């Protein structure tokens, strides 16, 4: 049975609902030996800042049970090098979403503006999990007022499809989602990593040089599913589901809980072909069950009688 895999993620027309998550897919070209990127719905770049930045000292990563911690820092090539060097390395058919962050709203807005000038940038994803310099480390995504100002500013800076990526480290994800919708975001991506800490008992220091880090991987999947479900019921803009997706079944669960598309993150480290295999696996899953459009799965979670 042939399955229609296309979805519309806030104006991003995707050939299938599988994207790759920011920071886990480099700038795309690194995957060329393993995967034809044209098989994916799209790719999301490493989060980009206006100026290139180097990141934290090692250790930047550590393993956890069914997950990993990371605190990479802001390492990225910067907006200009991305446009100049990274985009041209990608085939024209690859849908590119540029992830953006900054330490001030203005930095975000300027980065979005510059990226919007590239015709190859199909959409923007604003990473709102970045600590705000003036608020003593609280993330943009943790304060509704800050978040509103941020979304308003980037919305003004770009007419491209605008995704806002939310922090899961909040009391009410629904509230944050509503803020984004009210300020004109086209879609919401969630979740980013759960703030976490682990200790090296030999040295009694945090395992990561940065102290705190973010937990990703299968460990966070049930938290991500919960938040996607809550957010998608709170707003009418689409939700892109992220968190611990390792298999096609995991991805289908996100659609069922209300996501229009998904992003594959940590899985690409374990298996560089994961995103492609998940996209194919979703088609298999659907066709075995007589589902003719993947979009028909969105938000179909059944209540218990």
């Amino acid at each position, binding site marked *: 049975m042939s399955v229609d895999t296309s979805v519309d993620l806030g104006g991003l027309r995707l050939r299938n609902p599988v994207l790759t998550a920011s920071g886990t897919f480099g700038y795309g070209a690194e995957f060329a030996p393993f995967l034809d990127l044209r098989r994916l719905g799209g790719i999301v770049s490493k989060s980009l800042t206006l100026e290139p930045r180097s990141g934290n000292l*090692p250790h*930047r*990563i*550590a393993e956890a049970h069914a997950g990993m911690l990371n605190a990479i820092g802001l390492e990225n090539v910067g907006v200009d090098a991305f446009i100049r060097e990274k985009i041209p390395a990608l085939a024209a058919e690859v849908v590119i979403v540029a992830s953006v962050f900054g330490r001030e709203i203005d930095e975000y807005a300027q980065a979005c503006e510059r990226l919007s000038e590239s015709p190859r940038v199909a959409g923007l994803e604003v990473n709102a999990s970045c600590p705000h310099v003036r608020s003593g480390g609280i993330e943009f995504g943790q304060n509704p007022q800050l978040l509103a100002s941020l979304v308003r500013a980037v919305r003004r800076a770009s007419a491209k499809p605008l995704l806002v990526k939310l922090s899961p480290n909040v009391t009410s994800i629904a509230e944050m989602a509503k803020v984004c919708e009210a300020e004109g975001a086209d879609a919401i991506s969630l979740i980013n990593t759960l703030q976490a800490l682990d200790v090296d008992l030999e040295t009694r220091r945090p395992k990561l040089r940065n102290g705190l880090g973010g937990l990703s991987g299968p460990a966070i999947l049930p938290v991500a599913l919960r938040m996607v479900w809550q957010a998608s019921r709170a707003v009418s803009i689409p939700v892109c589901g992220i968190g611990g997706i390792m298999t096609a079944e995991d991805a289908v669960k996100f659609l069922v809980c209300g996501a229009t598309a998904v992003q594959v993150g940590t899985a690409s*480290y*374990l*298996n560089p072909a994961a995103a492609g295999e998940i996209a194919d696996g979703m088609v298999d899953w659907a066709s075995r069950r007589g589902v003719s459009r993947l979009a028909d799965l969105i938000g179909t979670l059944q209540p218990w009688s």
Partner: protein
Amino acid sequence: MIRAPLRADASVLENEAMGAANRRLRLLVPGFEGFEPGQFAMLSPGAVGGALRFDPLLPRPMAIYRASSGSAGAEVEILYKVSGRGTALLAQARPGEQIRFVGPLGRPFPDLRSDRVALLVGGGTGVASLYELAVRGARLRAGAVRVLLGAKSARDLMGHADFSSLAVAVDVSTEDGSLGERGLVTEPLARWLADEPASDVYACGPTAMMRAAAALALRFGRRCFVSLENPMACGFGVCLGCAAPRRDGGFALVCRDGPVFDATIVDWERLA
């Protein structure tokens, strides 16, 4: 020639204990076409056995020790030491079982120079990264390489028999003196640097050993290449987890820009 990496389901041919915690893993890797000295592969111990489970989650970087091609694909050999959860699981992989393999990865050691003696300094599991280099040196000419192997004790020593069967000189140091010279492998290195002015250093082992080797080479004004062992998540430059601080202020990715580096570009102070 640096080949593009591939992702394959390798099957375990053999997984044998080599004394102490050391083991040798022989894999059949469909599509594998060879590697350069110092390159590595990512192996996923968590996935062995089929049932979907993600603890431990991350693949482990392992130096490619040796490879040869057969009819069903290439055989790839890994030497490893059971030291944590990942390697404990790897030790349980049985012949016939599948294990995810991504490789060859990373930049190899530079070619040996025909006018110099290469001092290959290996400590602990770092020995595994040097074997192919020793093989090539032995082919180059007599006396092209000298291998200095170090371990805690004779039992822990890795690959000794293999190195010894090559036409190269092999010196052994053990911390307890149970084989070869008693002490750290950097002690004979210092002597050889003094005795052999036309020499380069190629080192792989614990960070402290490589730091010491780099310092010695610098003191004697010799080139020194080290193969760093930072924790890795991906192995091919996308997670940015393996960054090593450079002297000039920025970072290098151990998996993509290394694992082999000219020792002088590494900021040894800030390396964790």
